[in-house]
């Protein structure tokens, strides 16, 4: 399953780091962060609980950059 989220991130390099952090989160199969459109596309593993996974994604990203925000 794939979902797209609106995000807020300040710099392009941070966006790359967010992408990596999201990919490493459990339950995420693949992720792409688009700095230009401020959108994030997440592909989930089969059977993953989207809400929990996305909460973890948000936490992991916040760890890297405090200003980061995902609009769930």
């Amino acid at each position, binding site marked *: 399953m794939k979902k797209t989220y609106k995000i807020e991130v300040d710099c392009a*390099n941070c966006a*790359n780091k967010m992408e990596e952090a999201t990919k490493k989160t459990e339950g995420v199969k693949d992720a792409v962060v688009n700095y230009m*459109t401020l959108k994030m596309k997440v592909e989930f593993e089969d059977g993953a609980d989207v809400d929990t996974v996305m909460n973890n994604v948000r936490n992991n990203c916040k760890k*890297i950059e*405090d200003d980061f925000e995902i609009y769930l």
Partner: protein
Amino acid sequence: MNKKQKTNRLRIIITAVLLIGLYIVFKSGLILPEDFLNPWLERAVFIVPYIIIAYDILIKSVKGILKGQLLDENFLMGVASIGAFVLGECVEGVAVVLFYQIGELFESYAVGKSRKNITELMDITEDVCFVVEGDDVVKTDSDEVEIGTIIEVKPGDKIPLDGVVVEGGSVIDTSALTGESKPRDITTGDEVLSGSINVTSVIRIKTTAEFEESTASKILDMVSSAGMRKSRSENFISKFAHYYTPIVCGLAVVIAIVVPLVSGLLLGHDYNFAVWVYRALTFLVISCPCALVISVPLSFFAGIGSASAKGVLIKGSNYIEMLSKVDAVYFDKTGTLTKGEFKVTNVYSVTEDINVDLTLDNSDSAQYGSAVRELYKYAASAEYYTNHPIGISMINSYINMENANAKSDELTDAKKDEYLIKPSHVDQIGGKGIIAKVADKEVAVGNDLLMEELINGDFKKATEVGTVVYVSIDNTFAGYIVVNDQIKEGSFEAISELYKVGIKDVGMFTGDEEPIARDIAAKLGLNKIKAKLLPIDKVKALEDEINAGHKVSFIGDGINDAPVIMRSDVGIAMGALGSDAAIEASDIVIMDDDPRKVSLTVRIAKKCMRIVYENIYFSIGIKVLVLLLSLFGLASMWMAIFADVGVMILAVLNAIRCLRIK
């Protein structure tokens, strides 16, 4: 500018003024002697502007350390600036952060601005619509409207949902979808697509799609997710950034600690830590890969944006990259290079033995001989009931010849009755033609096989190129009519432009006969053609080119050519407005059917890639150069600031050029 940007701008201005003021007073020697402040007092004075400009960076880097994020740019800038203070280089310490903040502000402003520009270009959806309920018109959110609802669209408004006109007639402008402002007349029963603008009068539409599924939303969704398919350059940059910062920081540590120790212990030089620490701090200032990381995706985004403003949708930046490497472009014929509208180009009559060339624009029927006109009339009449495009084109051309004023009108039964003789009986001879009874004469129209059968091959073969319709009247050969597909306006320019931008092979794959293909190739300047191809043969022909080492792009109408479009390196669908199949199969979608858009797209791709490479080489080049210079003590921290912020600003400005490709 948003609030955050405004605060930062204010901080930058205050700091800049303070820094310059303090410098003039204490450091320039103009007002006070240079050594007026002792080193400790100097630090205490310059710490004021430093705190103003750097407090957020310091807070963030402390947070970063607590979370185990050592190599983020805040931390690096923090270390570099504090280090400069420790070394007593207070002015540089403040300047590093000041310029870093200027760079950040510029970056967020420029990116925000181009983001806004581009989204405005793509802003083709309409969030509100007016639903007709009895005598009232109710304002509703577009995404709440169900299929089959009647909505009203006023002149000047965007059509919010796809639908069919049920009341009223108007003119619509589809330029937001196609990039081409050719107004179109619409009337009851016509289909209209969301994103078009209703120009002249109020219309009512019965919707045929929900908001999410309507054309405008789909196009917007496609373009805004284009950045999700990253190009190889973008992936390279992410990888580069991933390793670049740790490597440069590692080198900085080595320079600050190992080099002086080694030179001190082994070579007996003095332990001059200050010099080496200064060089190491310079490294830290250059260690941020910002310029690259921002400018490359920005270039692609701007390129995709400027293409979509012209009615060309590119599905991902990887396709821009691939298209820029394409060296062979193949077109489908019908509907792509030609209009798919047939026209009579020659009429030959035996009795008069003259051949009228109708491609010359002479619509005055008086100059054609009466025999030609009679032959033409009988042949067109025999086609009275036809649905075949060639038959219809014969009727249309005949009516146009007799009455040039009838040109733009549609073919109606009344019009047919006015100009033609209604046949009393018609026989279809499968694969050969028609035999019809027209005014007591037996008129046969068809191909050479029909003539062989009816009159034993006793007829004159046509020498003209095109689809030839032979005519016999009462089993005597009467003449022939040549019908040709019309070359699209702009096909020729498109092809010569493709050669100009460096495409080596520009060719055509067609299912049509060889002579017709050759004729078109000669007229358009195509250098490779393959004719008489079935759809499956087209895929093979394309694979041959790919196997021969070419990077191939194929342009087709997207419906019949879907397999070839998918197989090519970059598949382009043309005239795709309203066709989901075409949009699905292709990598690049040209909304209208103007072949010149193909060369335009190639040009955008090439320009965009050139800018991307310029940015990559320029940014990496300057950074490596300054790193080397500072290693040998030839670069000051000021140069490092330029290598970081200056390069970023230049790269972003360069990237924005992608928006202005004509």
